[in-house]
């Protein structure tokens, strides 16, 4: 899966963290990914302005693949493909 065709990816699960501040979006995303398999895709919706920095760092540290970042101003949407970690 490449970043180029990320717009056509159907997420396995969507997590809406609207209204939540750090550390909750990352915490909820960690819990959501626990329930997914390697290769599954989690869509995360955030309104915390820190998420633009936090969610990519979260994926990087976990070894997941950040497929897409969509910054719509007050809302950010991310697609993360689960890696081999828990």
């Amino acid at each position, binding site marked *: 899966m490449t970043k180029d065709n990320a717009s056509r990816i159907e997420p396995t699960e969507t997590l809406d963290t609207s209204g939540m501040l750090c550390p909750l979006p990352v915490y909820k995303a960690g819990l959501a990914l626990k329930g997914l398999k390697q290769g599954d895709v989690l869509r995360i919706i955030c309104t915390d302005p820190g998420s633009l920095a936090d969610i990519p760092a979260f994926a990087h540290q976990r070894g997941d693949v950040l497929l897409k970042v969509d910054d719509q101003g007050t809302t950010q949407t991310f697609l993360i493909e689960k*890696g081999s970690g828990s």
Partner: protein
Amino acid sequence: MTTAATPEVGTPEAGERPRRLALVASKGTLDQAYPPLILALTAASLGWQVGIYFTFYGLDILHKDRFESLKVASLANPAGPIQMPNIVGAIPGATAMATKTMKKWMDAAGMPTIPEFIDMTRDLDVTFFACATTMGVMNVSEDDLIEGCDIAGAAAFLDYAASADVQLFI
């Protein structure tokens, strides 16, 4: 120093241990209880191993009778939730007012309470070290602490922290 600080991908290679965060929580006010728990919860969510060493007033965060009623200092705290001169901060009830205001802020922002943070971090296997010296000095017994704390001295914590990738004193 090793090059481990800037790997290509944060997750460890097969056979390597996960990253580790070692925190010291030395303060027992409500506002200062949040940072170690927020960092611990975040690191655990990244898949890191996390241990917090609760020492001196920080031990109150593990104290059964105190962890649900931590307070914000109203005296000598110019950054507190209510700006007040020290002479007002010294009045009975000022600490309660500052504490109530901070709790209101946290609640309005949807932030969990300290007891909730403790439950959430422990569900992610964060290790809570209770400082043995503090227990002795402040006359705190194991029964006074919430369940599942590891009682440890400085040597045991340093042994844990020596193989941590990030160590912070709060």
